[in-house]
């Protein structure tokens, strides 16, 4: 689009945030998986669930999750709406959409393939290290 190119900014760089690409991709996948299995959840609920599953390996702060959530809402992978929690508190609830499910399937396949490849690569290098 011209207004982007006028400033000579790479479109993909504008839309994707550079630094945490890998980590963010992982976090997005976790959020999608969580929402897929648990149904509708608020931000705190998602954060708790991920903490329970992964310890503090992925989420340094619970606040980090919101950048991921808003991005996926904009992509149309998840939907958001205000609702009332079990404890009768107003909270924003997120749920996975059809597009999100598709994305989840795609990401999962890719992730699994990558995991297989990575473990194979790492295994050979360990053997190669000890002749």
């Amino acid at each position, binding site marked *: 689009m011209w207004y982007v190119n006028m400033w000579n900014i790479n479109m993909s760089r504008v839309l994707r*945030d550079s630094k945490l690409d890998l980590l963010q991709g992982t976090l997005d996948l976790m959020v999608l998986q969580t929402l897929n299995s648990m149904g509708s959840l608020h931000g705190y609920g998602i954060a708790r669930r991920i903490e329970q599953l992964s310890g503090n390996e992925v989420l340094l702060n619970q606040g980090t999750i*919101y950048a991921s959530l808003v991005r996926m809402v904009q*992509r149309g992978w998840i939907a958001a709406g205000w609702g009332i929690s079990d404890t009768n508190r107003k909270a924003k609830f997120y749920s996975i959409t059809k597009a999100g499910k598709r994305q989840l399937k795609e990401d999962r396949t890719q992730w699994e393939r990558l995991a297989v490849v990575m473990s194979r690569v790492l295994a050979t290098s360990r053997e190669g290290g000890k002749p």
Partner: protein
Amino acid sequence: VSSVRLAWARFVAAFRKHDLDREFDEEVRSHIALATEDYMQRGVPPAEAQRMARVKFGAVEASKDAHRDSRGLAWLDDIFYDLRFAFRDLRRDRAFTITATTMLALAIGLNVTVFAVMNTMLFRGFSLVKKNSCLAYIEEHSPSAGCCSYPDFEDWRAQTRSFEGMAFIGERPISFSDGGGERPVDTLAFTVSNNTLELLGVHPFLGRDFVPADQEPRAPPVALLSYRSWELRFGKLPDIVGHIVRINNVPATVIGVMPRGFDFPVQGDLWMPLTLTTELQHRGPGGPPAYFAFGRLKEGATLAGARSELDAINRRLAASYPATNRDVVLSVESYSKFFIGPNASVIYGSLWAAGWFVLLIACANLANLTLARTLGRSREFSIRIALGAGHWRMVRQILTESLLLAGASGALGWWIATWSVRTWAAATASRYQVLDYALDDGTLTYLIAISIAAALLCAVVPIGRLLKLEVNGTLKGGARTATQGRRSKYLAAALVAGQMALAIVLLSGAGVVVRSLLTVVDAPTGVSDPENVLIGSMALPSEKYGNSETKLRYFDRLEVQLKAIPGIQDESISNTIPVNSGIFRTFEIEGQDNPPDPGESTQFLTVGSDYFRVVRAPVISGRAFNDGDLDSTLPVAIVNESFAARFWPNEQALGKRLRAKDRNTRGGWRTVIGVVPNIMQGDPLRQHFKPLVYAPFRQDPGTHAQNSDGAGFNGAYFLLRTSVPPRQVAQVVRAALQKLDTDVVLQEFTDLRSSFAFRQDRMDLEHAELGKYGEAAPIFALIALLLAAIGLYAVVVHSVNQRTKEIGVRMAIGATGEGIRNMVLRDGMLPVAAGMILGLAASFAVNRILQSQLVGVSPYDPATVIGAPVILILVALIACHIPSRRAVRVDPVVALRQD
């Protein structure tokens, strides 16, 4: 699709920042509340639970930033930020902003004006006519005539492959009345072949187009009105179609009205179908009345191709009809070239270039001002760079500022251009150039493009400077060093030199053009005291004054009336006046079997007995005409010096005989009875006196008079030598004419001096635009000079301000006021001198391009070559002098204490 959706979502989010921030705040609050409850459920005391929830959430501000970054467009926020910053900055520096915007707006407005005018002149042309550029104008010439014949046209039309269609047009003077029985008025009608409007792609606004049946010799007369005459003569009468008007006293039916603004080929009141009379069926060029043909080129056909094709057809015609078509040549021109003249591209191209020069000067000014501002803020920039702001960020800020300035200037410039194009259109309105000056989208795009280009041009110098900014040095050296940085000084000087060079080129270009115009206007006419000669043309209605006797009787009675008016010394009638062209006729001289060139023609005039007394050009040898030179006496002639010198170089002209020898008629021999001094006659450039032959009016009263359009009319001019200013007797003369016959139409009623003024339609095609050119060029030169002077002034002021401390030191160690002033003047004038030399060299090259437009002036005209630099130096001296006085007033004590 998803990436577009995402981009859109983010674009929208960037504009809803405030709402989204508030919503996220709420979400964060709810998150912490939920977490606190959760901890409390697990048995943590409330205060501790809340603390833990907050710790677990992490830094709220950081997550807000992350939220903002991932949902919105960071760069868009940055642009908003830059814009706000630039806006605030420009508002703070109001003097700079106003100066810069005004200068740039003026330059952009001027540039766009020229662009719009050029676009119209060279490419667009007629309003409403579709694809103007594909129209070609066709005329045929033989040595004695220059007018298309209908049978020739039919042959071209039948054989051509280059044209989609061809049409035939003539112009004829008519008397017109709207059928209500009131007095008829004389006006012009165009007789057109029935396909004309279709070929132009224009349809009547009311009623119908012409059809082939209208062209039949016995068809009932019909007419299409122009919107103007429908409005002026009929007050937009709604049921005008079918209305009966009288044309040349014959009833004709109005079949329609053309759309507003449509005029073709020149301004006129109505169009009538060409009637295929037997008179029209003559082969070979003839006329009057004047006819021409035009054609619309087929897609892909070129004008050159069409020209050679028509030439080939014409050669075949010459072989088939040698009697009429032997020496006929065709001229095939594009419409714009025909109506605007062959040198329009030189004129408008050079004006456009001048527009760019002015814009460049304005940009150089702005670059200099921005440079000064950037340097004034170098400490600020250095601090920001030291604190980690990227260079790119600073560059973007300068760019944004320039773009903001250029945007404002562009908007103002558009307004200026709208106004000035309208002024130009009104000032140059002419029957002969029916042009569509509307500013269109193309012009707007052009304006936006040059505004952006101007912004970039203004920004490039300061940016270059900024990138070289030495952070350490600036921070250590304090806000001001004692002397101005050498590099920025050179940059400023180079910009000033460039401006001066451009200004000199414009000045000397304008100089030669204006001198050409003056050469034409001030050329000797051979008439003494023309301001005391009252002139006017009398058009006699043909029904009443159809033959020589009735005409002569009228003029006899007129003479008596005029002679009785006090204040009139001498009076004469003649068939034309000195600015108009006489009737060109081929002729032969007794005893010379030449005329030297068989086709050579010369102007024949018929004048009254006292003509040479009225114009104060007394006979040199022989005698003037007198009342005894009648139809029944010896046919006589008077020639001018130029004629005598040309055809009887070493002989006595008196007593020689000559006669007009037109295509069909052969007049009787006329004996030369006198030689008169040269008087200008119709020569547009007025650089040479052409040979002329005068005959007594009474021996040839049937000759048509020639009006300023070169069209013949039934009547004559009168010339009255007055002893009082002509204005004082004008009313009496008009009344005398009215008393004689109210049906005689008085036109071109003015004094002879005014009739000599420059008029575009009297010029030849090549120089037709000289008047506009000569008036526009000095405007450009003046604006350029003014802008350059402002630029120089600003630079010198800035340099004096920068060097206050240095000047203080110099004065403290003994420099005199004069020494300081000389230093400032020298520093200011050095780049002026450099630019002047450069500009003079360039103007020699540029002026050569203008050569085709110059009349009687060399491109290296000494007056201009000396005058332009003198003007520039004077203006530059003034621009330097004002700040130099300030420098002298610097108080060393105050200056040294500063900072």
